[in-house]
C-alpha cells in the first residue's frame, strides 16, 4: 500500500469534493445506505446518483479496486502474512462500506489514487459511473467557487468552440443564435467602435453610419443615392455653370492619388502615410489633425442625433480628400481628377485588410503616436492605393474558413459574429462582390438587380429597361464571380411603368440642355415604340450627343430620334434673355447676331420684323413694356453692327412665341425672334 500512503491527502481538490458530495448528500446514514433508499429530491429533480443502480455500481467499483490490491499483495512472496489478513480485512471493509461515514474516512485519503488506477485500467467502467453525476459535480463546484471553475473552463472552451465549429457548425450556430441579437446590442452599447471595426471588413462603413438604425432607413438612403441624379451628373455639372471647356478639362485630368494617410480617429495622429514621390510633400500631421477636427465638428453639427454621420469627402482647391472610416481609424486619400467608381471599393478593401490583419491586437485602437509599433505591412497596403488606385483585389470565392481574427474576436467578446457568415460565408462574399460591381456600374446602379446563389449557379433577378443592360449586368456579374454559372433571369421591361413620368423627365432634360446651348429643344415620348423624339433648332450633332446619351438612360426609353431643324438660317434663331432683362448676353451676340448681320449684308433686300416676347412671370404692365423694349435693344444692336434701321421693324407681345406653351420652361418665352418681311 506504499503508493497510497505517499499520496498527499486531498491532492485533487475536485475529487475530494466529489467524495464529500457522495457522503454528505446522497448516501444515507442507514443500514443500507447506498442501496435502495428513495432518491432525495435535489431542486426537484431526481438525483441520478440515488438510484439503486448507480450506488451499487460505485460500490462494486471500489470493491474491485480493493480486490486488485489484495491480489497484488498475495502475489508478493515477501508479504506472507497477507494471506491470512486480507480475507478478514475484506470482510471488515465490506461492513464499513455499509456505513458511509466510516467508509468515507477510510477511502478519502486513497480515493484519488484508486480512481486514477481504475481509470487507467478500465476507463469504460468509470465513465458511465461518473457520467451520472458529472453534471452535479460541475454544478456544485460552480456554486462553491465560480471563479476557479471559470478559470479552468476558460482554457478549454475556446478550443472546444473552434473544434465544434469545424465539426458541427450548425449546432454551434443554433445554440448561440438566440442570444446574438442581445449580445450585439449590449456590445454596441459598451463599445460602439469595437463593434464597427469588427463588422467593418464585411459591411464597410455603412455600419458606422447606420448602426442602431432600422433597416428601412438604410433603404431610404440607398434609394436617394441612386436617384436619377446619378445619370445626369454630366448635365448637372453644366447647369452649375461649368463650361464645356472646363468640363472637358476636368475629364481630361487623369485620376491620381497624391497621398494616402491612415489616421487615428480620436486623436487625429497619423498612423501611417504614403505620398507620391516627386510631388510636393503634404504635411501629413497637420492635414490629419485638421481633417479629424473637421470630422468631429461635422459629427457634432449633425442635426439628427440618432445618426452618427460621417464626413466622407472634402473638396479642397483642385484636390479632393476622400475618406473611408472604420471604428478606430480612417483612411484619407488626397486625389486629383474624377475618382473612378472602383476607387472607393479599393479604399474599402484596403481598410478592411488593415483591420483584419492588425485591428484586433489593439494597435489601431490604442495607437499613441509611436510609429515604431506600426508594422511595415500597413504602409505597403496604403502604397497600393497610390500605385494602383483602381486595381481591385479579386474577391475570393472559393471556400475559405471563417477568418481567424473574427473567430478570436467572437470568443473574446462572447459574440460569435460568424453566425450569419459562417455557413454562407463564401456565398455572401460572392453576392457582396456582385452587388458592389453592379452598384458601381453607372448604367446598372439604378435598377434593383438582385444576385442570388443556388449551388454553383449565380442567379440575377430584377428588371432592366433594355436587353443591352441585361447583357451588361450578366457580364459584370460574371467578371467578379467567374467560377459560377450564370442564370440571367433579369426581365427586360417592355412597358415602362409610367409614360407620363418618362415624358416629363425627358422634357425637363431636353429643355435644360437646350437652355445650356441657347436653343429651343423639346421632346415627345412615343409610347408604343418607346421612342423619344427630340425636336428643335439647329445644333451640331456632336453637341447633342450628351443629351441623347442621357435620354437613353431613362428607363423605358429604347431609342432617341433627333428631328432637329436643319434650317441654318440666322433669321430662325431666337435670342434669349435673363428674367426682367433687356441685355443681350455676349454669346447671343457672337453666336446669333453676328451671323445674322452677315446674312443681312449678303441679302440686302431682306427686311426683318423683330418681335420681343416676355415670360408670364411679373405683372402684365411691366411685360407690356419689356416685350417691345427687347426688340428695340436688338434693333439697336443690329444698327450698331451696320444694318440700316429702315430694314428693321419692331414689335412686342406678352404672348409666348410659336411652339412654346405655358407648360414649357419660362426662359423659352423670354426671347426675341425674327420674321422675314418680304
Amino acid at each position, binding site marked *: 500500500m506504499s503508493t497510497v500512503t505517499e499520496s498527499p491527502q486531498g491532492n485533487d481538490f475536485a475529487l475530494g469534493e466529489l467524495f464529500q458530495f457522495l457522503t454528505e448528500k446522497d448516501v444515507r446514514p442507514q443500514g443500507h445506505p447506498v442501496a435502495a433508499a428513495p432518491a432525495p429530491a435535489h431542486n426537484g429533480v431526481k438525483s441520478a446518483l440515488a438510484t439503486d443502480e448507480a450506488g451499487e455500481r460505485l460500490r462494486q467499483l471500489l470493491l474491485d479496486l480493493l480486490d486488485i490490491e489484495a491480489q497484488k499483495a498475495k502475489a508478493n512472496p515477501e508479504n506472507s502474512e497477507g494471506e491470512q489478513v486480507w480475507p478478514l480485512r475484506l470482510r471488515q471493509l465490506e461492513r464499513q462500506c455499509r456505513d458511509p461515514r466510516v467508509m468515507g474516512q477510510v477511502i478519502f485519503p486513497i480515493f484519488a489514487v484508486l480512481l486514477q488506477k481504475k481509470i487507467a485500467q478500465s476507463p469504460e467502467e468509470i465513465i458511465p459511473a461518473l457520467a451520472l453525476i458529472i453534471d452535479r459535480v460541475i454544478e456544485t463546484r460552480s456554486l462553491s467557487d465560480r471563479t476557479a471553475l471559470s478559470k479552468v473552463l476558460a482554457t478549454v472552451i475556446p478550443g472546444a468552440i473552434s473544434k465544434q465549429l469545424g465539426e458541427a457548425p450548425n449546432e454551434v450556430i443554433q445554440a448561440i443564435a438566440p442570444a446574438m441579437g442581445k449580445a450585439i446590442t449590449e456590445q454596441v452599447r459598451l463599445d460602439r467602435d469595437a463593434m464597427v471595426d469588427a463588422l467593418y471588413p464585411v459591411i464597410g462603413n455603412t455600419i458606422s453610419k447606420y448602426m442602431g438604425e432600422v433597416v428601412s432607413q438604410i433603404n431610404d438612403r440607398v434609394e436617394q443615392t441612386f436617384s436619377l441624379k446619378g445619370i445626369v451628373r454630366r448635365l448637372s455639372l453644366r447647369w452649375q455653370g461649368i463650361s464645356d471647356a472646363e468640363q472637358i478639362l476636368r475629364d481630361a485630368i487623369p485620376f491620381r492619388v497624391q497621398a494616402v494617410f491612415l489616421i487615428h480617429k480620436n486623436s*487625429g495622429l497619423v498612423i501611417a502615410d504614403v505620398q507620391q514621390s516627386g510631388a510636393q510633400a503634404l504635411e501629413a500631421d497637420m492635414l490629419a489633425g485638421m481633417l479629424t477636427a473637421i470630422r468631429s465638428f461635422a459629427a457634432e453639427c449633425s442635426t439628427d442625433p440618432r445618426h452618427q454621420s460621417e464626413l466622407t469627402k472634402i473638396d479642397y482647391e483642385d484636390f479632393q480628400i476622400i475618406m473611408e472610416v472604420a471604428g478606430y481609424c480612417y483612411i484619407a486619400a488626397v486625389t486629383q481628377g474624377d475618382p473612378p467608381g472602383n476607387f472607393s471599393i479599393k479604399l474599402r478593401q484596403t481598410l478592411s485588410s488593415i483591420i483584419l490583419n492588425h485591428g484586433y491586437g489593439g494597435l489601431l485602437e490604442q495607437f499613441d503616436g509611436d510609429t515604431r509599433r506600426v508594422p511595415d505591412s500597413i504602409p505597403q497596403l496604403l502604397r497600393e492605393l497610390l500605385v494602383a488606385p483602381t486595381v481591385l483585389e479579386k474577391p475570393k470565392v472559393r471556400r475559405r474558413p471563417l477568418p481567424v481574427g473574427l473567430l478570436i474576436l467572437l470568443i473574446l467578446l462572447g459574440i460569435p459574429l460568424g453566425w450569419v457568415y459562417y455557413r454562407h460565408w463564401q456565398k455572401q462574399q460572392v453576392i457582396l462582390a456582385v452587388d458592389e460591381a453592379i452598384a458601381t456600374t453607372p448604367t446598372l446602379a439604378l435598377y434593383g438587380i438582385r444576385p442570388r446563389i443556388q449551388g454553383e449557379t449565380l442567379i440575377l433577378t430584377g428588371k432592366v429597361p433594355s436587353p443591352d443592360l441585361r447583357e451588361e449586368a450578366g457580364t459584370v456579374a460574371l467578371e467578379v464571380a467567374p467560377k459560377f454559372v450564370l442564370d440571367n433571369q433579369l426581365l427586360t421591361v417592355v412597358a415602362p411603368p409610367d409614360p407620363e413620368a418618362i415624358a416629363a423627365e425627358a422634357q425637363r432634360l431636353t429643355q435644360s440642355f437646350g437652355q445650356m446651348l441657347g436653343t429651343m429643344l423639346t421632346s415627345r415620348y412615343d409610347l408604343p415604340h418607346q421612342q423619344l423624339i427630340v425636336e428643335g433648332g439647329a445644333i451640331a450633332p456632336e453637341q447633342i450627343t450628351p443629351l441623347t446619351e442621357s435620354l437613353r438612360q431613362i428607363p423605358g426609353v429604347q431609342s432617341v430620334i433627333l428631328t432637329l431643324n436643319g434650317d441654318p438660317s440666322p433669321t430662325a434663331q431666337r435670342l434669349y434673355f435673363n428674367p426682367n432683362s433687356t441685355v443681350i448676353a455676349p454669346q447671343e451676340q457672337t453666336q446669333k447676331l453676328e451671323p445674322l448681320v452677315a446674312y443681312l449684308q449678303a441679302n440686302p433686300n431682306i427686311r426683318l420684323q423683330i418681335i420681343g416676347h416676355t415670360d408670364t412671370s411679373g405683372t402684365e404692365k411691366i411685360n407690356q413694356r419689356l416685350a417691345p423694349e427687347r426688340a428695340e435693344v436688338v434693333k439697336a444692336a443690329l444698327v450698331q453692327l451696320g444694318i440700316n434701321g429702315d430694314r428693321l421693324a419692331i414689335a412686342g407681345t406678352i404672348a409666348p412665341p410659336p411652339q412654346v406653351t405655358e407648360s414649357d420652361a419660362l426662359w423659352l418665352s423670354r426671347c426675341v425672334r425674327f420674321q422675314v418681311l418680304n
Partner: protein
Amino acid sequence: MVTVSKKICMVGDFGVGKTSLIRRFVDREFSDRYLSTVGVKISRKVVPLPPIDDIDELKLLIWDLEGQTKFKAITPTYLQGSSGVLVVADVTRSETISHIEDHLQLFFGVNPQGWVAIALNKTDLLDSDEQTYLQNSLQFNRPHILGPYLTSAKSGDNVDQIFTTLAKKMLD
C-alpha cells in the same frame, strides 16, 4: 531617428491667452491683438529630447480650441485621443480661475489617464506680491495634474517650461 507624436489640447475660457501661449511657444511671437479662435486650430512643434531616451524627438500636435463662453461649452469630442491638456486661466479674471475645475473634470471625463498642466496666464499684469499670493493660494495636489504655472505669453515666462514638462510626462 525616432519621432513620437502626441496630441495635446488647449482648454480654458475665451480670451485667457490659449492662442497666445501657442504662438509664443511655437513662433516665439506675441501680439496684443485679440483674434478669438473659432473651432479648432492645429499647430505643431517638435520638441527635441535628451539623448537618454530611446525616442529622439517628440512631435507635439497642439489643438487650440475655441474658448468656453457663457453660450458655448467646449466640445468634448475634440479632447478625444489627447494625451495631455493645458488648462489656461487669466489671472486678471477670477471667474476664469474658478472654471479650471470644470475644465479638469471635462478632460478627465474623456481621458482618465491623461495629464493636465495648469497655466495661470498674463502674470505680467500682476506685481510680484500678487504673484506670490496667487502661487500660495492655488494648489492642485492631485495625481496627473502639473502646476499651476504662472505664465505669461507676453514675456514668455514659464511658457516653454509648461509645454515641455507636460510633453515629457505624457511620454512616461
